[in-house]
């Protein structure tokens, strides 16, 4: 009798622990979107990636279609080489436009893909040619100031 109640409690403990792990995996973590399905790799070169990070999302039309897996620096062209891992289900035309956006005013940066009209699709390992760098806030402010100053001198 003693052994049976003990077994019951240990069983309960193990079930509760595994349930907690499942909760963490399914409800807290993004298990389903990450682990399932195959993916392929695309390369994109940017003049400036701003604050883009590895594991940052790649979105198209606002939907997450992949992740940034690697960020490198090309010493020949002085450009940033960003490796994107895209879900196998989504294929993009060859003239797809990749730009770096910011989620919210101070949020994380992500890569947005805007598909073009080309018939041919990008294959695994291909490079995206049309890219737009991250908007650097300081440049934006200085541009604004210069244009304001120019306006001022015109009206005089």
């Amino acid at each position, binding site marked *: 009798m003693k*052994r049976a109640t003990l077994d019951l409690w*240990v069983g309960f*403990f*193990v079930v509760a*622990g595994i349930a907690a792990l499942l909760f963490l995996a399914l409800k*807290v*973590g993004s298990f389903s979107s990450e682990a399932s399905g195959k993916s392929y790799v695309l390369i994109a070169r940017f003049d400036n990636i701003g604050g883009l990070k590895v*594991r940052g999302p790649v979105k198209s039309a606002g939907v997450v279609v992949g992740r940034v897996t690697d960020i490198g620096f090309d010493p020949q062209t002085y450009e940033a080489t960003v490796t994107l891992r895209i879900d196998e289900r989504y294929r993009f035309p060859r003239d797809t436009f990749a730009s770096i956006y910011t989620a919210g005013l101070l949020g994380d940066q992500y890569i947005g893909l805007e598909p073009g009209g080309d018939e041919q699709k990008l294959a695994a390992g291909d490079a995206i040619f049309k890219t737009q760098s991250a908007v650097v806030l300081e440049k934006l402010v200085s541009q604004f100031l210069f244009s304001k100053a120019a306006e001022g001198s015109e009206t005089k």
Partner: protein
Amino acid sequence: MSEWANGLTNALRHLGAGVVERVWRLGSATRFFAAILLNSGTALRRYPLTLREIWFAGVLSLVIILVSGLFVGLVLGMQGYEILTRYGSDSALGVMVALSLLRELGPVVAGLLFASRAGSAITAEIGLMKATEQLKAMDMMAVDPIARVVTPRFWGGVLSMPLLAALFSTMGIFGGWLIGVKVIGVDEGAFWSQMQAAVDFRYDVLNGVVKSFVFGVAVSWIAVFEGYDSEPTAEGVSRAITRTVVTSALAILALDFVLTSFMFRGAS
């Protein structure tokens, strides 16, 4: 002059003896660990013994783990909201609570509680068995005390620890949700969806489980070794228990630093 030199020699001698003693104990602890692993097969085949130790190490630690997890979550929710709302990003509360629990607080605090709740009990039990010569009696009856007494306690601790850490994190997230969503009024959808977007299963959840497993091995190893190695007196057992708690806490914090620098360095 010669007295001063004598004092210096004595101090050096003590230091040397202390170092040699520590290295000697580390060596015998490692040999003891090897003996545990060698005896694991027989001990796991007689699983009722291990089951009983899971009951003692895991089930009886449930109350303190669940209650502490809940309160840590409540405090995280309150403090996190206080800080995040200054930057107008209180919808990131779920992310903050979940990531800090899964990566650091869950395994570390659960490990510390486990060391003081279950580790000390294991040391006390084995130490008392040694002091009352039960281990020697077993040896006389050709029962290997490492296989019969030590190994089930070791595996009971190792198997319980990841489950306890997962329960701790779950309770903490529940506590954060309770304070954030139910009491303060953070948007429930943002709380969960931002959490799901930011928490990665392999990167955050599995690394947390690996951490808690490593802590479980360290704490259980220290606890059974200190018990088995204790002086067979009342004072010796009490000193062994103190050593278990102190060494386990230091081991957990040091291992946490090493594991974190391996696991989460490339994040930012």
